[in-house]
């Protein structure tokens, strides 16, 4: 459509409305502004302001002979280069762990969500019970549940003993204090975030489409790939984001289930720089780098796989 044509149409549209209607529209617009005001204020106070503080803090300078934790305002961009050079492997590891955990959670959550949302449609009681069971872990503390994993995977627990008996694990092998344990913990702890959005989108799946697909001689696999999966994409998309982003910044799992060698995640490093080393600029710079990296990864992901239903 050419520009003048567009203009003409706009004019035409305005002409069609009565003054009352225009006033109503305007009022609605103002009303909208009022409605988002609390949200905007909240975000300004608890997100925008901390980000600004974080940014300026990351540029602070440590004066010569300073007392621990003493920094003065400055423009020290060197901090970014320094922490990046030192910690990019940890950052990379965090994203790899988060990615593996996200894929694992997807593989585990999808069939569960499908069962509850599609297969159990006629059985509300069973469906309700299963849903409650899926959400139940949320009712107890995140830390406690992770601690429980440590007990379950302990060297002298039955899992490790069984794996050793069938020679899957070597005699001196263990599961806790390994990357495997950390990824398992991440997968488990973020599973509901994957499961619920997928469930929500499969819930709305029109089963007549599946019948139609069968009537058109599609095999069950084809039906799944061409009908079910595309219909559930908004859920899968939301689920992966809700799992990946917090998993990448998580440090509880790595702290409880990991070791000191090859499981450290970026959250642990930020915690240690802030509280132990008292390197506030370093911790701030790392937090900022983490935020930017996640933002970039998510943008790429949205560009590549984003669905219209979601945005």
């Amino acid at each position: 459509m050419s520009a003048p044509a567009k203009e003409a149409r706009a004019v035409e549209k305005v002409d069609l409305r009565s003054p009352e209607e225009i006033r109503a529209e305007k009022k609605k617009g103002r009303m909208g502004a009022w409605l988002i005001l609390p949200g905007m204020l909240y975000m300004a106070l608890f997100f925008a302001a901390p980000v600004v503080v974080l940014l300026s803090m990351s540029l602070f300078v440590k004066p010569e002979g300073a007392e621990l934790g003493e920094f003065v305002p400055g423009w020290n961009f060197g901090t970014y280069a320094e922490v990046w050079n030192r910690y990019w492997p940890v950052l990379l590891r965090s994203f790899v762990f988060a990615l593996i955990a996200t894929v694992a959670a997807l593989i585990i959550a999808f069939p569960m969500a499908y069962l509850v949302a599609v297969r159990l449609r006629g059985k509300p009681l069973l469906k309700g019970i299963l849903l409650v069971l899926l959400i139940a872990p949320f009712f107890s503390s995140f830390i406690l549940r992770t601690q429980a994993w440590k007990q379950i995977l302990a060297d002298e627990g039955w899992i490790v003993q069984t794996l050793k008996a069938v020679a899957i694990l070597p005699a001196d092998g263990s599961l806790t204090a390994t990357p495997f344990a950390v990824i398992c913990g991440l997968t488990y702890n973020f599973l509901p975030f994957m499961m619920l959005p997928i469930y929500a989108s499969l819930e709305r799946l029109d089963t007549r489409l599946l019948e139609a697909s069968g009537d058109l001689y599609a095999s069950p696999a084809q039906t799944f790939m061409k009908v079910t999966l595309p219909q559930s994409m908004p859920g899968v998309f939301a689920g992966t984001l809700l799992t990946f982003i917090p998993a990448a910044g998580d440090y509880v799992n790595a702290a409880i289930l990991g070791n000191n060698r090859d499981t450290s995640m970026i959250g642990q490093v930020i915690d240690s720089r802030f509280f132990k080393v008292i390197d506030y600029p370093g911790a701030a710079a790392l937090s900022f780098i983490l935020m930017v990296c996640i933002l970039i990864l998510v943008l790429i992901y949205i560009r590549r796989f984003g669905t219209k239903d979601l945005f």
Partner: protein
Amino acid sequence: MTARRSASPQDPLVRALVQAQLARPSRRAVLAGAGALGLTAVLAACGTKGSGGGVKLTPAQDLSASKKELSWANWTLYLDVSDDGKTYPSLEEFTRRTGITVNYSEDIDGNDTYYGKVQEQLSRGQSIGRDIITLTDWMAGRIIRQGWVQELDHTRMPHVDANMLENLKNVDFDPGRKHSVTWQTGYAGICWNKAKYPKGLRTVSDLWAPDLKGRVTALDEMRDTMGLLMLDQGTDISSPDWGDEQFENALETLNQQVQSGQIRKVQGNAYKEDLISGDALAGIVWSGDITQLNFEHDNQWEFVIPEAGGTLWSDNLMVPMASQQLSNCEKLMDFYYEPEIAAQVAAYVNYICPVKGAQQAMEKIDPELVNNPLIFPTEADLEKAYVFRALTPGEESDYTDKFQTAIGA
């Protein structure tokens, strides 16, 4: 709180703020340049000023005589409790005798995290709502060095002067105990599971035996783990003579043992679970924990101070600058240095009791504990126990950085 503060014209908060504003025009100018959003306030609130900023804090006016109360921040499970877990008998006794009510809270769960929480207010001489805080030697040293706590009047604490164990009286982080009074103390040493590792241990190097691979735990408290490693390498960690070289040598050992997987994990209090589950069979641990674990789990472990020596750490009571209850606090400190009261606490907390005479007093409370060397240390043990020397700010940040890197964070 606010009312009380504004009633006092000598309030350290007001003074500190006024002085801070006068003393730092350049910073204000820079910040004005940085622009909008009330950045000054926000930045000021995010904690960057040490004592180097030039503001010298002075104690708040002592209102102890009119306000018979005080508030005490301590670690968990660190004071005798009644069987129903609701009251603290020794505190009740204190209130009965002095009329001072104590608001006791177990809100310290780590030196670093607590420091992170309160350092901003402490550095400005603002009230943190606590009149006594309880922190470990090195953190106490940092806070005393920065001038954030009040000087104590020893003439008002006769029991403290008379009964404090000799080797705690003069510590390098607080000469003459001018600002701090020891609460409880303990060793870091080595322990092993008696049934699963009958061989036992005598030195820190014994932890590197091949049959302990992946089953050794160590503490994430730098001064304890590094202290034991350095002692094992022949360094006297109390003396001012050692420096970077000795630290680096010990760090290399730590690095090797972590990288080879010999040490399963360097961690905080969570190591107790590893000992219980059997994931760790031996390790560098705190004496008080092992006493408690043995009590709860059938005497499974044995704790020793390594032949080359172990570390002796203490937690210390201090009064922040903004507290208006100094002499009430001193009364409380003095109260806990009466041998009978000290024994009552020791019977519950199981750490080393810093009070002379408490051992005799223990006869009446629990005769079984009288000869427990982890509560009432023997001369021989005390000779092997070293206090990690105070570090300069530069050393502190450098060593902490290196230690944190070695343990993967």
